[in-house]
């Protein structure tokens, strides 16, 4: 499964754009996506991020589907 994930803030800057393609197994979960990101994020000095699926925070066990809107959510800092 090829996912086109949305990137924001420090992640968008570090990866050079607001979207990134990531290849995952067809039965991949949010945890699998985070594991795939981990080394890339660490190498760029990025903080731990969360994942949103279809505009809602997603649990690690959530299964991903090709049509999902998947976003990497760095630590938030509104207010």
């Amino acid at each position, binding site marked *: 499964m090829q996912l086109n994930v949305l990137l924001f803030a420090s992640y968008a800057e570090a990866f050079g754009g607001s979207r990134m393609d990531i290849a995952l197994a067809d039965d991949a979960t949010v945890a699998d996506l985070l594991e795939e990101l981990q080394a890339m994020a660490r190498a760029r000095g990025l903080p731990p991020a969360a994942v949103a699926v279809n505009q809602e925070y997603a649990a690690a066990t959530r299964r991903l589907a090709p049509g999902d809107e998947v976003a990497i959510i760095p630590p*938030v800092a*509104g207010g």
Partner: protein
Amino acid sequence: MSRVAVVERPLDVAALVAEVSSPTDGAIATFVGVVRDSNAGRPVTGIDYSAYGPMATRELEAIVAEAAAAFGGVRVAVEHRVGTLAVGDASVIIAASHAHRADALGGLGFVIEELKRRVPIWKREHYADGTREWVHAGSSRSAPLSGGVA
């Protein structure tokens, strides 16, 4: 009715107060978040705010609904500004209206604390020495849920 928005224009406290006011309500509590001229001892000249707009709106809608449920049906209007803001500019304004002050004040506090904890909005500070840095002081609500990356 409550209302939330993420906007790219200057914020207007008086407009939000007028929006939530009602003849049945005896208390309107307001919060104005303003860009400060320093952070952790470093002189700050401005802040870039950005958002995951659709999700930020959904989270804000959930938060004001939770506030209404927990604080006697308090009605809340909240606007968060995005873009490049200067010192003194308002970044967020909240107005909470209720018949009595306890629920107006309680609802107001709940909304700003939850906004800071979970609404996908980010800021990059500009410092007097010309450098810029992303602020990662907060932690994402979902970090425990998702496990985090690093």
